[in-house]
């Protein structure tokens, strides 16, 4: 079997598995966020944090919950890293420097998991399991909560109420992420992923000499790393490391985990707004982009020219031989089209176009299917923009899901789409203009520029993967990427929640034959076009000087 066919079969198996899980999981999540019941463990948590889960929140209150919780999380995680040196169970690692501790705290709370540290050489069991893994759960749950609040904005009318943040947060963790993580971790352990609290081992290498390996609660962190579209590896090599991702099956399973919740949330959305077809339209839009990107990636990685490529059957540099080009391409696209950022191969080593595809995937705003929650709300914002332009073309002031897209709504949507391009382009420009940041580049020319463009793209879009090659553990990168991650995560949330508030105050407009149908293939096609053109136009000049220049040079 050729490796092309193997890659294609893996893709089909993946689509099949996602399709099987789509309905039950989507419907289950809709029930979770619509239920009135509270389980006993949930009530204990509410009592502990002093929250009343029955209170309906207007958008400012909901936002305050999101921001307060995240601020506390950043402080806690920062403190934990700074105090690591004095804590037991830290494998003897010292405390983390302030700039790196800030960067890491921001990174994990913002669901980014950009890592400027080497996991196995810097973080002990306490920080890894008690700090980072916890954030992997709660930051994902925050993302889903905000998405659900926006969905309620469409589904509810004339109330201004968006639900209860604390209830949404706790339920996301207790009823969705934890059960799935337990199942997923068992599967991973069965595949050979390690799960222990062992210390550092000195092992001999084939080539002579020794190497230090440490154990850890890897499977439990690995599963939420993918499921919560976090991406922060236990080890620096991330999912290329055999302790994290030992076999082709575990690899496929991890891709499945990455895509599972973001895709299923479209069903949850359809359920909650009372029209499954609306959910399918969003699913179709995400699916088209995802499949197109995967196909392009496989094409460019298999089609590499030159003797080295031909011997390896394609661009094998930086890819694991146990996965091959197909599975690596699928992984790379899945991780950059979601806000995951886990990697099983080095994106820096992809062909020029391949590297460009990973960057463009993030630059689309990670909405196909995107991060848990953030993918859905990002896509809904684009849906609003598309509806605004297309709606005019059918001769009505635009409306989406029965809600008018007026001045206030378009203002918030416009602010949303401004945030990440502004962060990416301004920080990249600053890094290029200043004398020192460029010292971190490993390569020169277009590829060197790609390293920095990738870093800020990844940070501001909350992806967290690195192009590799860039030494990001400098005060400049730790600080600026940290800021980009926080602003790139929470500013959009402000606009999304304000938008949700504005939508939920409206009375619904009934659908007539004159209404733009947003549950039809034509609209899904239009949405794809809007996303590609608006993002494409924003980043085209930058991409032309990085991956495009590199790809076209061959």
């Amino acid at each position, binding site marked *: 079997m050729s490796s092309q066919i193997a890659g294609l079969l893996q893709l089909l198996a993946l689509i099949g598995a996602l399709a099987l899980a789509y309905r039950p999981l989507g419907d289950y999540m809709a029930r979770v966020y619509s239920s009135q019941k509270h389980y006993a463990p949930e009530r204990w948590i509410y009592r502990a944090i002093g929250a009343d889960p029955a209170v309906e929140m207007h958008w400012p209150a909901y936002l305050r919950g999101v921001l307060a919780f995240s601020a506390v999380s950043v402080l806690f995680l920062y403190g934990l890293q700074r105090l690591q040196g004095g804590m037991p169970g830290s494998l003897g690692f010292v405390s983390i420097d302030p700039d790196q501790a800030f960067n890491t705290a921001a990174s994990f709370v913002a669901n980014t998991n950009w890592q400027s540290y080497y996991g196995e050489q810097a973080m002990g069991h306490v920080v890894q399991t008690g700090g980072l893994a916890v954030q992997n759960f709660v930051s994902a749950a925050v993302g889903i909560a905000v998405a659900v609040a926006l969905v309620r904005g469409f589904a509810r009318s004339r109330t201004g109420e968006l639900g209860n943040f604390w209830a949404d947060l706790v339920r996301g963790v207790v009823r969705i992420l934890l059960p799935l993580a337990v199942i997923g971790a068992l599967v991973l352990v069965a595949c050979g992923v390690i799960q222990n609290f062992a210390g550092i081992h000195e092992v001999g290498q084939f080539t002579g000499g020794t190497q230090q390996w440490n154990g850890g609660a890897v499977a439990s962190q690995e599963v939420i790393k993918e499921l919560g579209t976090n991406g922060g590896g236990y080890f620096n090599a991330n999912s290329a490391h055999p302790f994290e991702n030992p076999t082709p099956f575990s690899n496929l399973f991890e891709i499945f985990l990455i895509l599972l919740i973001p895709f299923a949330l479209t069903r949850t959305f359809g359920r909650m707004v009372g029209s499954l077809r609306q959910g399918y339209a969003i699913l179709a839009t995400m699916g088209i982009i995802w499949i197109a990107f995967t196909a392009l990636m496989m094409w460019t990685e298999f089609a590499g020219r030159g003797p080295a490529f031909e011997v390896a059957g394609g661009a094998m540099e930086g890819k694991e031989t146990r996965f091959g080009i197909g599975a690596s391409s699928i992984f790379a696209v899945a991780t950059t089209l979601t806000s995951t950022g886990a990697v099983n191969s080095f994106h820096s080593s992809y062909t020029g176009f391949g590297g460009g595809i990973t960057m463009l995937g993030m630059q689309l705003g990670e909405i196909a299917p995107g991060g848990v929650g953030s993918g859905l709300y990002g896509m809904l914002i684009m849906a609003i923009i598309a509806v*605004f*332009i*297309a*709606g*005019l*073309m*059918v*001769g*009505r*002031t635009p409306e989406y899901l*029965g809600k008018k*897209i*007026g*001045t206030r*709504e*378009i*203002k918030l949507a*416009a*602010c949303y*789409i*401004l945030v990440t*391009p*502004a962060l990416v382009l*301004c920080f*990249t*420009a600053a890094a*290029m*203009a200043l004398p020192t940041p*460029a010292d971190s580049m490993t390569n020169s*020319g*277009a590829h060197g*520029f790609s390293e920095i463009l990738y870093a800020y793209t990844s940070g501001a879009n909350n992806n967290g993967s690195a192009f590799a090659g860039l030494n990001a553990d400098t005060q400049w990168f730790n600080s600026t990427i940290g800021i980009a991650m926080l602003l790139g995560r929470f500013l959009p949330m402000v606009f999304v929640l304000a938008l949700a508030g504005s939508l939920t105050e409206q009375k*619904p*407009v*009934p659908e*007539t*034959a*004159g*209404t*733009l*149908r947003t549950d*039809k293939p*034509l609209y899904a096609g*239009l949405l794809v*076009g809007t996303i590609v*053109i*608006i993002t*494409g*136009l*924003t*980043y*085209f*000049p930058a991409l*032309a*000087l990085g991956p495009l*220049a590199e*790809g*076209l*040079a*061959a």
Partner: protein
Amino acid sequence: MSTATPTRAPQHDTSSGEQPGGGRVGGGLFDPRQLLTSFPDAVRKLDPRVMVKSPVMFVVLIGSVITTVLACADPTDWFGWAITAWLWLTTIFANLAEAVAEGRGKAQADTLRKAKTDSVARRLSEDGTSEERIPGSQLRIGDRVVCETGDIIPGDGDVVQGVASVDESAITGESAPVIRESGGDRSAVTGGTKVLSDRITIKITTKPGETFIDRMINLVEGAARQKTPNEIALNILLASLTIVFLLAVVTLQPFAVYAGAEQSMIVLVALLVCLIPTTIGALLSAIGIAGMDRLVQRNVLAMSGRAVEAAGDVSTLLLDKTGTITLGNRQAAEFLPVPGTTEDELADAAQLSSLADETPEGRSVVVLAKERYGLRERHQGELAHAEWIAFTAQTRMSGVDVDGRKVRKGAAGSVIVWVRDQGGQVGEAAGELADRISQAGGTPLLVAVEDGDGARVLGVIHLKDVVKDGMRERFDELRRMGIRTVMITGDNPLTAKAIADEAGVDDFLAEATPEDKMALIKREQAGGKLVAMTGDGTNDAPALAQADVGVAMNTGTSAAKEAGNMVDLDSNPTKLIEIVEIGKQLLITRGALTTFSIANDVAKYFAIIPAMFAVVYPGLDTLNIMRLASPESAILSAVIFNALIIVALVPLALKGVRYRPTSADRMLRRNLGLYGLGGLIAPFIGIKLIDLFLSLIPGIG
């Protein structure tokens, strides 16, 4: 206002070869000469304080200033001068679009101003005994003024005493005089119109400067124009796209420096201007003004642009039956003889007896007899010794006595009484026929004769409301557009249903009182629907105010005109449908040009990016798929295309895109194909052609 006569001409040129009724809303007229005559206004609009209202064009203005300064600094650089010139042209073309749109309004305003000469008011004193002459501008609300034959009415008001014929052509363009009388629904008079006969006393209801004619002048001139909600929202989106592109271009320089291809400021400005949505930014306000103008051309005055936009969103139309759905009067539809009489006999008697009936109903009987039974119309003078009995509202009968034969036609009750008076009997058959007609929603008229065989009923004339031609098709169209039609009538439910079925409206409100109307509107609005209606009476005023689009008839009372947000000077209620279509056309034009403008950018990137960077990354020349001659010609071609496309689209912006009532899906498919795909492809061709032309100039190719 001669310029405001309806110009329906464009509908013919846009719909040729299309299905009937297609492209009904044609655009306004556009004359290329307007581009020249408005040029001075366009230059005057370069004032930054004016330009700042359009963020997109303001950026272009700043860009033009920057390139001018740079070109002056290096006067030998022909490229800098060429870019500078075209950037200024881009700005001026944008202003030109707006100036042309406004120019047409100005001409109308001038005509109106002539009507508003400083009239002299003859104000009555408090006790009404003496009158003084004061300038019309000094009138206050509540003043009473007298107008006699030949006087210009000094201000808006209601007739409180007398009746007069008034020439309102200054406002409506309609030369036939109208009657204005105290009390009732025809009491409103408009300042600037002229009393042709008789004497009336008017109570002034509007302050000078705020009269109808003043507001009209403001409206057509665009002085009172405020951005509509949707226009504001679109402006926000365009502004944010402008910011995105500003960021993309500003940050490009450090990247370019790193790549070793530092760009000149002129090239960066050119790139920015090409990327920001200048096409729609330039045409946006012209589209809005032209939309109002299209209404004015149809003799409809919208008091706010908001109302025009709301018209596009209307999902329920309340239509008065009489005058809108049916012709104003009932007409004879068939003759139904009683047993023992032939249809021809009945037709003959019906015609004979109706000759003395000058009411529209009576005329329709004669017409029906002629058309259906070939009976030549006889004239009263033809029959010797005939004694004509004319129709009156009291007798409710007409007829003729001739050759010892008496023929009568009239309301069932009156004719029955007459037959009995003549000693005749009324058979059951006649009663049954009459009942059947009533149940079908019609009105029965009995025809009877008294001759040698005694008095008897010959048969029944079926009078019914006649639905205007093409109404069913229009309502079908409206339904496809997602608009529900509700017929409002004072008729009983039976009659109402019959007409509603025949006309094909979705629903009807029978025996409607103003309160019922109001309740219906509120009910629809509670469901999130937008409601449009027409009205003329004072009792319509609350409903007109409540409706999202309330079109008052110009013949209506001032209360009605005050309450509605549009006034139809022709007082033609059917126009409501056109108003909705114009509202939709306005929004579609906006959306189509926005899509076109954004789609254009793709080609511009393919022109400019290789031109900027192929020097350092030769691979990027692959992106130069248009094979443009040189970097300079590529950038210049993109800038020139960007400027020329504005002028090229001015006619479209002013006329509005073609609009045909159809479902949202089909409309989207069509417009997306035309303006989305078209917008992607057109600039590739346009830029290539301009480049071919430029490359012929020595030193560029």
